[in-house]
C-alpha cells in the first residue's frame, strides 16, 4: 500500500473520516478492495455508557451537553452507509447512572442498543446492580449477544444467557469476539452476583483467543474487557492481559472510565501487537478502529509481515 494521508482527529471528526481516508488511498488499494483481495473492517465501540440516554444536562458541569443515544445512533447510521463491514461493540457497564436505570431497570438501555444495531457487548460490574436476576430479566430487550468467557454462570439464572465468544463473518473475513469481566468479590454485593464464579481472565483469555485464532481460523480476535485499563497495585488489567497473552489483536476496554489520547499498542507474548482502546464513559465518545486485510495466496505464508498503524483515519 502506498503513502496514506494522515488525518488528525479534529479533521477526522470534521470531515467524517471515512471519505477522506478513502480519497487518500492509492489506486492499487482501491482496485484491491474492489477485487476482494483487500478487505476493510470498521469497529465502532463504547464502554461504561451508564444509562446515559440523553446528553448531560446543561448545568455547568464538566460534561454538560455531551453524549446522547440519538446522536450516537445517527453517527453510527452514517458510518454504516459509508462502510460495508461494521462491527458495533460495547465493553460493559451499560446500567446505572441516571434515573432511567433506577426506574426502568435497564430496559431502555438495551432496547436502544438493539435499535442501534450493537453486534455484541460484555458485562460490567454495574450490570449486576439489580442483581443477576435484574440483568437476566432485561435480556429479552437485547437482540445482540452478551459475551462472557470468565464468569461461570452455571449455578445461576444466567446459565444459558451468555456466550463465551461469537464469530462474525464479514465478506470473507472472520472476526472472533469474546468477553472478559472483572473480579466481582469486593466490588459487587455477593447477593447480587450470587453463585457466579470468576475465572482467571488471563488464563481464560489465552484459551479463547487461541481457539479463535488457531482452531476456528479467525482473521482478527477482539476482546471486550471490563477489567480496567491499568492499576497501580498488582491487579489484572487490560495492560496486564495484553502483555501476558497471545492471539488477541484488540482489547476494547472499560471500567476505569479512561479517556485515552490514542489507542495503546502493547507487545504480547509472541511479540505481536495487541491494541488497547477505551473511550471514557457515558457515551461522550465513540471509538473507531479500522483494519485493512490482504488476502493471502494459497499456502504461501507470510514471514515477519508488518502492518501500519495510523492514528486518524
Amino acid at each position, binding site marked *: *500500500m502506498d503513502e*496514506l494521508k*494522515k488525518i*488528525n*482527529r*479534529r479533521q477526522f*471528526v470534521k470531515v467524517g473520516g471515512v471519505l477522506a481516508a478513502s480519497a487518500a488511498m492509492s489506486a492499487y488499494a482501491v482496485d484491491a478492495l474492489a477485487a476482494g483481495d483487500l*478487505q476493510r473492517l470498521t469497529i465502532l465501540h463504547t464502554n461504561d455508557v451508564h444509562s446515559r*440516554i440523553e446528553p448531560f444536562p446543561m448545568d455547568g458541569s464538566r460534561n454538560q451537553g455531551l453524549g*446522547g*443515544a*440519538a*446522536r450516537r*445512533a*445517527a*453517527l453510527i447510521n452514517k458510518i454504516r452507509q459509508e462502510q460495508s463491514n461494521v462491527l458495533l461493540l460495547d465493553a460493559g457497564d451499560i446500567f*446505572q447512572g441516571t*434515573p*432511567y436505570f*433506577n*426506574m426502568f431497570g435497564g430496559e*431502555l438501555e438495551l432496547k*436502544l442498543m438493539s435499535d442501534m444495531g450493537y453486534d455484541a457487548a460484555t458485562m460490567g460490574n454495574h450490570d449486576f446492580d439489580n442483581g443477576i436476576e435484574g440483568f437476566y430479566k432485561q435480556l429479552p430487550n437485547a437482540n445482540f449477544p452478551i459475551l462472557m468467557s470468565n464468569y461461570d454462570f452455571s449455578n445461576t439464572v444466567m446459565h444459558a444467557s451468555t456466550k463465551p465468544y461469537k464469530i462474525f463473518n464479514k465478506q*470473507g*473475513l472472520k472476526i472472533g469476539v469474546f468477553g472478559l469481566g472483572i473480579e466481582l468479590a469486593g466490588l459487587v*454485593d455477593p*447477593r447480587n452476583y450470587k453463585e457466579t464464579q470468576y475465572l482467571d481472565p488471563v488464563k481464560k483469555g489465552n484459551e479463547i483467543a487461541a481457539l479463535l485464532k*488457531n482452531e476456528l*481460523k479467525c*482473521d*482478527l480476535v477482539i476482546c471486550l474487557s471490563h477489567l480496567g485499563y491499568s492499576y497501580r497495585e498488582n491487579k489484572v488489567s487490560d495492560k496486564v492481559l495484553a502483555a501476558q497473552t497471545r492471539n488477541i489483536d484488540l482489547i476494547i476496554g472499560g471500567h476505569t472510565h479512561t479517556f485515552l489520547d*490514542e*489507542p495503546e499498542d502493547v507487545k504480547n507474548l509472541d*511479540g*505481536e*501487537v495487541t491494541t488497547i*482502546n477505551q473511550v471514557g464513559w457515558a457515551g*461522550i465518545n*465513540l*471509538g*473507531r*478502529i*479500522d483494519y*485493512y*486485510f*490482504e*488476502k*493471502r495466496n494459497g499456502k504461501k505464508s*507470510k*514471514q*515477519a*509481515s*508488518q*502492518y*501500519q*498503524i*495510523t*492514528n*486518524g*483515519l
Partner: protein
Amino acid sequence: MKIFKPLLYLAILATFFGCGKRYSIVRSARGEYHIDSTLTLDSGIVKTYLPYKRKMEAQMNAVLGESAVALEKERGTESLLGNFYADAVASEARKLFSFDFTIPTTKGGLRNEIPKGKITLSTIFELMPFENELVLLKLKGTDVQQLLNFIAASNGQPVSGLQMTISDKKPVNLLINGKPFNVADTYTVLTSDYLANGGDNTKGLATPLERKTIGLRVRDALVNYVKNQTASGKVINAQLDGRIKEN
C-alpha cells in the same frame, strides 16, 4: 478537543506457518468521534425514549413531602442534612429490626442538598443515587471504639442514636441510645453495605461478629420516611441537636 499526533507504528506479525488463515492485517487506522451538539439526532431513537422520559420525569417530579427548612451540609460536626438522613434511615429501619445506633453514610455520601419547600423523588435520587443496602453489624466494643474514633477524627459523620463530644479529635462523653458507651459490650450498628465493605475508609466495620442485610435500600428508607411524614401530616423539620459537639 485533543488532536491525535499522526503516528506510524510498525508492528511485526509473527510467522503464520500452517495456520490456514486467509487474510492478514496490513493496516490499522484509528480515531474517535466526540458526541456533541454538532451531530444530528436519530429521530427513531428519540421516539423510542420519549415515552420513558415523560414517565421518568412524571415520577421523578412526584412530590413526596415538604421541608420546612433548607437541609444543607454545614461544615460543622453535624448538619441538618446529615441529621435528617441518619434519623430518617434509623426511623424506617427500626420498623424492621432493633439496633443501637446508625451511621448510614459518610458526609461524602450526601450527594446533594434538599432545598426548602417541596421534596420530590428526584430530590431524593439526587441525594442518594446509589443502590446501597442497609446492613446490621454486630460489633465488639473495641471495633465500635475504632468507629467512634473515626467519626471524631473526621470531625463528625451523619449518625443517629449516638452522642459524642469531639475533644482534640478524640471522642469523649459517649452515649449510645442514651447510655454510656462500654468497650466491654457488643453493639449492633446499622450502616450501608458500602461502608461495611470498607467504603470511604471507614474504620471498625471490617470484622463484625455478625452481619445481616435487612432488605431495605438506603434510598428507599429515605423515600418512605418522607412519604410517611407527609401521610401523618408532618413536614420535615430537621434540627441541630448537639448529638456531635466540639469541645
